[in-house]
């Protein structure tokens, strides 16, 4: 299978979906720029033109409502936010209307298949308002589906699945992953929504990770293998619906669970997955579950503070070793150098 970057995979998924379904259109700030959302909408614009890929003013709430209204008439709008932090402004339409639409009208008003693509920022001084990840916040509410592709294949596959789904789906794409390469099938193969993925098999510890933390977990697992520790890495992929079965199967197998998330701990993914294990796989747990998440403060800007703020591969590896009551040697070497140069 050929390799694509995450960005190329997002683009290919979008283009193939648009080929299959003429009802799909793409809008949002900057979707028709030459830079096209880090390149992910450029090909769609080239292929399908400005009638299907077009810019929008800065009006997050109404734009989401507009997408809902178009969806109610048979369209499949894709609304893109260059940063998901702007979506707070659209929460009312998304949570109070799109998520509830099918249910609240007793199934009689049809469905509103709006897809929201939103980019999660990280680092390079983006600061507190441009680097949050709203996945748990959104996924608290029934009616939405919320997915986070980590690997290029899922960047494409989840895009395809979202654009075939009949309900509202939010795709949170991590900015730090856009350059990541990996195998991606050429055919339009959707990644089913609501299904986690065991991306690395192991026997000693289960690490359930979301988004960028999957890549960090894989890096940690590779290093830990050298130490004789076998780590199973589960890419959560979908935070609503949550694939409880895959997670529980892994936890029951290894008996140890670490959850690594790209957002905060309180009321986040790391707590949810930990609670799931404690409720449904309790008898198989060999020790306490562990949660790894952002430091409990808004995102700072200055580089040394950012370094302290974000968990990474070495943090995961250290935590895994401590769960096994082993002390860690110096692990910082496994963290890649931060050579990000923008555009942020």
């Amino acid at each position, binding site marked *: 299978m050929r390799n694509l970057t995450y960005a190329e995979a997002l683009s290919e998924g979008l283009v193939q979906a648009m080929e299959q379904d003429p009802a799909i259109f793409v809008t949002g700030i900057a979707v028709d720029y030459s830079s096209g959302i880090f390149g992910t909408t450029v090909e769609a614009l080239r292929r399908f033109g400005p009638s299907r890929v077009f810019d929008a003013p800065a*009006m997050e709430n*109404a734009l989401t*409502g*507009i997408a809902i209204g178009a969806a109610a*008439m048979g369209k499949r709008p894709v609304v893109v936010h260059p940063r998901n932090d702007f979506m707070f402004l659209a929460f*009312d339409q998304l949570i*109070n209307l799109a998520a509830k639409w099918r*249910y609240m009208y007793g*199934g009689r008003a049809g469905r509103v298949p709006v897809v929201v693509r939103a980019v999660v920022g990280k680092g390079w001084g983006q600061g507190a308002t441009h680097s949050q990840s709203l996945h748990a916040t959104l996924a608290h509410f029934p*009616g939405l589906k919320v997915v986070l592709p980590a690997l290029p294949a899922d960047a494409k596959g989840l895009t395809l699945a979202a654009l075939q789904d009949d309900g509202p789906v939010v795709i949170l794409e991590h900015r730090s992953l856009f350059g990541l390469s990996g195998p991606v099938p050429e055919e339009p193969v959707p990644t089913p929504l609501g299904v986690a993925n065991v991306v690395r098999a192991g026997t000693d510890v289960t690490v359930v990770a979301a988004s960028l933390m999957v890549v960090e977990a894989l890096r940690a697992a590779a290093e830990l293998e050298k130490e004789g520790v076998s780590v199973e890495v589960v890419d959560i992929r979908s935070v609503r619906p949550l694939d409880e079965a895959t997670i529980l199967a892994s936890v029951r197998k290894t008996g140890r669970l670490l959850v690594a998330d790209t957002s905060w701990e309180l009321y986040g993914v790391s707590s949810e997955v930990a609670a799931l294990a404690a409720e449904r796989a309790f008898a198989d747990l060999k020790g306490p579950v562990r949660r790894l998440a952002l430091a409990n403060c808004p995102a700072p800007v200055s580089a040394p503070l950012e370094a302290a703020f974000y968990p990474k591969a070495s943090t995961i590896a250290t935590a895994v070793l401590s769960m096994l009551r082993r002390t860690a040697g110096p692990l910082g070497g496994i963290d890649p150098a931060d050579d990000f140069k923008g555009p942020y």
Partner: protein
Amino acid sequence: MHSPTIETRRRLYQSVLRLRRTEERLAALYRDQEMRTPTHFGVGQEAVAAGVCEALDAQDVVYSHHRCHNHYLARGGSVFALAAELYGRDEGCSRGRGGSVHLTGPDHGFMISSAILGQTIAVATGSALAFKMDGVPRVAVAFFGDAACEEGIFYESLNYAATHGLPVLLVCENNLYSTESPLQVRQPSGTQLCERAAAFKLRAEQVDGNDVFAVHQAASRLLDGVRQGRGPAFLECMTYRWLEHVGPCFDHEMNRSYRSREELEAWMERCPLRRAGDALLAQGAATRDELEAWRVDVDHEVEEAVARAKAGSWPEPESLFDNVY
């Protein structure tokens, strides 16, 4: 232009009549506390829904807000499905999942109503976007109140609809109050909502919202422009709510003093139903006997519908998880 035929005028009257008699009956029944759903009755404001909806075509779509019964009914919704929804029955238009503020009836061009102020203004704009993209001659209409014009989403939608020249008619029912708050605590003095809409380059008109013929005529005029591709339009209908904000009582029954009984009575003098009836009689477009016969017919429809609704079935608890995603 648009001088309505006698047939149209008779239909307009009948529509106002049907709305009035239905809401009055529902309000009476609501006092039994068997309809467990917060309800905003539209008594007194019928001419807006009746006048605008008569000007629509079958393929047009209507969106509404919390005070939605009139729009639902004027757009052809059944009294039975409405009453059943209020009674929480599975036969309700939203199967007892939505309640009074969340009605739907896509089969007759009523998409949805919603309880969050301003929400459906954007949604209607989005349906209009779909129509424009498809090049179909359909129009989307949003009904909303004066308070929705305080929410930012209204202006975001105006700006978008005008920028894209979308076929949407935005109808504001200005009944002078948001819950118990009069206009002057919410808008600068001298405010003309039409001036605001015009500043966004919409064609905008204000009309006597208690005159169903005037509403119909203004709506038809604006809709002509919308259909001709001249972009969105805004229609402000000045009217008045007779009952309390939410619930079936008159404010004076509840000893509320945010507005005076005199003010209410002055507006009741301008009753849209009586005015429409008087006009028909004066023009010889209907006789007193006809008006009375229509009333009897409507009452019959309503009585039969509410009885059937009340006798409807409760949703099964097992159906709780139907239609989540």
